[in-house]
């Protein structure tokens, strides 16, 4: 029965859960089983988009927004005067199934504030998920938060019901985490992350021996880092992310531009708006790490510890390494094509398959979907303007042309307000 109270709770507990950015439903391919409701699709399906442009795939909701901790960056910290509510396990599972059957959502994302102690909270969440799987015969996607500090048994049980588990790191350095959340420490957060990683690989081994062994978190684990609440630079953040990907085999690291939810707390910076551009650049860098074969050092290094807000990370990489360019699209290997600004995974694939039949020219590249506005400075194909071919790549000039929005097709017209030294170089 849907009562007024459910409406109120849903409002409060969705509102409290919304700062968790993860909404992915990908990573598990699971067909429907007879007599059950639901399946999971490997690519994930979004079901709606909220007015901030973010995808709504899972019903993101908290079991409870009561919390015994007092972390400065969190909207649900115990010292906040904030409407509080708790769902019973049945209430969450009934809502989930009601939404799922109407195709509103792809699954459930269950999180919670810490009630009494980590174990008690985890038990509550597990009974929700268990109810959903057992009573409703639900076979769709579930993402569950793991509360740091809960017992190993509870993590193992959670992982047997859920598709994905996540433990949020939140702050990219231990020192600042302790500053903002004195009750937390890195060991406490890394322990469950390690435990999940190890269990996943054990499970994979077990399943290789015997197919009947049930899967443990088939969609892997993820985490979230808040960006801009503490002074870490992008190099620190991306190095941490890089390690989480390589050592801990995480599926995703999410970056969440800090939203000043507790602006009264003096330990937090005063921001006029959330650092959305920085967050966007971090995601671009993350993509370069995961799909483009870049290493962290190629994206950020000692001289450039922060990502450039004006140009994307790949463009910056190209401008810092002019000796690698121009790349001949008709000969360069796939890995090198991926390093060219304006060429993505899709267009690199098309280039590789099309050039077997004929030499590609800029017209073909445009049709294939290469963003010539960026790529033109870094490639050669059958025909190309004399300036770039003869002099190679000049980072300063490219930077200037990109910023002034010029279209240097054919001869480059140097604008009048160009710095004098560039004139000397090109008009000689």
């Amino acid at each position, binding site marked *: 029965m*849907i009562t007024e109270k*459910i*409406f109120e709770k*849903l*409002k409060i507990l*969705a*509102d409290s*859960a*919304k*700062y968790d950015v993860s909404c992915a439903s990908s990573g598990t391919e699971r*067909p*429907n089983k*007879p*007599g*059950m*409701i*639901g*399946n999971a*699709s490997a690519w994930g*399906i*979004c*079901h*709606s*988009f*909220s*007015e*901030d*442009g*973010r*995808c*709504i795939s899972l*019903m*993101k909701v908290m079991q409870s927004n009561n919390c015994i901790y007092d972390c400065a960056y969190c909207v649900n910290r115990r010292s906040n005067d904030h409407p509080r509510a708790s769902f019973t396990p049945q209430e969450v599972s009934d*809502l989930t199934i*009601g*939404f799922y*059957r*109407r*195709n*509103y959502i792809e699954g459930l994302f269950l999180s919670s504030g810490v009630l009494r102690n980590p174990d008690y909270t985890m038990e509550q969440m597990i009974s929700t998920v268990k109810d959903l799987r057992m009573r409703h*015969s639900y076979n*769709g996607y579930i993402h569950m938060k793991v509360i740091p500090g809960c017992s190993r048994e509870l993590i193992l049980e959670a992982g047997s019901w859920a598709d994905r588990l996540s433990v949020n790191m939140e702050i990219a350095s231990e020192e600042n985490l302790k500053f903002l959340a004195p009750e937390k420490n890195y060991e406490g957060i890394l322990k469950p992350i390690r435990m999940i990683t190890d269990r996943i690989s054990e499970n994979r081994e077990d399943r290789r021996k015997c197919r009947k062994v049930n899967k443990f978190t088939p969609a892997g684990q993820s985490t979230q880092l808040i960006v801009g609440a503490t002074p870490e630079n992008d190099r620190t953040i991306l190095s941490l992310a890089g390690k989480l990907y390589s050592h801990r085999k995480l599926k995703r690291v999410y970056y969440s*531009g800090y*939203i000043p939810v507790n602006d009264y707390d003096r330990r937090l910076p005063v921001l006029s*708006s*959330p650092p*959305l551009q920085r967050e966007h650049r971090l995601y671009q860098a993350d993509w370069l790490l995961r799909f483009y074969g870049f290493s962290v050092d190629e994206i950020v290094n000692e001289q450039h510890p922060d990502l450039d807000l004006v140009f994307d990370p790949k463009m910056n990489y190209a401008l810092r390494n002019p000796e690698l360019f121009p790349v001949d699209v008709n000969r360069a290997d796939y890995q090198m094509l991926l390093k060219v600004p304006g060429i993505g995974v899709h267009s690199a694939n*098309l280039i590789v*398959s*099309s050039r*077997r*039949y*004929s030499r*590609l020219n800029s017209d*073909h590249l445009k*049709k*294939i979907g290469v963003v010539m506005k960026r790529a033109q400075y870094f490639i050669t194909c059958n025909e190309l303007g004399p300036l770039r071919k003869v002099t190679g790549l000049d980072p300063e000039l490219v930077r200037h042309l990109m910023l002034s929005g010029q279209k240097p097709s054919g001869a480059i017209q140097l604008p009048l307000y160009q710095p004098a030294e560039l004139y000397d170089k090109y008009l000689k």
Partner: protein
Amino acid sequence: MTLLCFDDTFDGFLTLIFESYRLKIIPDKIIGKSEEQLFLFSRPVFIPAEAEKSDRVWNKIIERTSKDNADRIYRVFMSEVPGSRMLIYEFIRLMTERNYNIEADFTLRPVLEINKLHRKVAREADRIRMFTRFQKTAEKSYFAAFSPQYNVLPLVINHFTDRFSDQEWIIYDLKRNFGFYSDKKETSRISFTDLPVNPVNGQLYESFHDPEERSFQELWRKYYNSIKIEERSNYKLHRQMLPRRFWRYLTEKG
């Protein structure tokens, strides 16, 4: 002008291609039976569908290119976009003329066009998977209706059959006036003459709804409005991801 006409089905279309090769007729235009009356002066030649002939063309496409490519062609056919049939025709001509697998040679115009159009259709199919909204009926079954841009319902129906295998449902294309009905065991094509549906938003009339349906729609709207982060508002991105034409059928936008 040579006009060839088929019975609006994919089988009929492939048979037409077969016959055009057999009879050595190169069509200037390929039209469906439903468009026949649009032509005053030319006499279209009608070619009836024959399963055997259409199978031969289909298998030839797979043999000379790949199954993926054949599926791509089917999707392009389902786009129902003017010119898409001639595009497929040109593609098949190229396929038979060249002595290599042309499916990845994007320097050929039809190959590139087929790929672009297939991506658009696939995108629309994705959107149907995303934006279909079921309403629970008084008979405890589920109903959804909308008007997709391309004829993609047949392309995605397996997804719904698999996922919602333990509930009875109907998904209906209001624009093309047909849909699919699943009774938990089988999914079959259906067509209604008088649906008790408001064509503006695809909602069943109130009396057909389950007593709790209204509450669930209200809950979903509540959830939708609670989940947005005011500080991050981005309406441009929002509209790009959730195109306006779907809004009227979406519960959360109602």
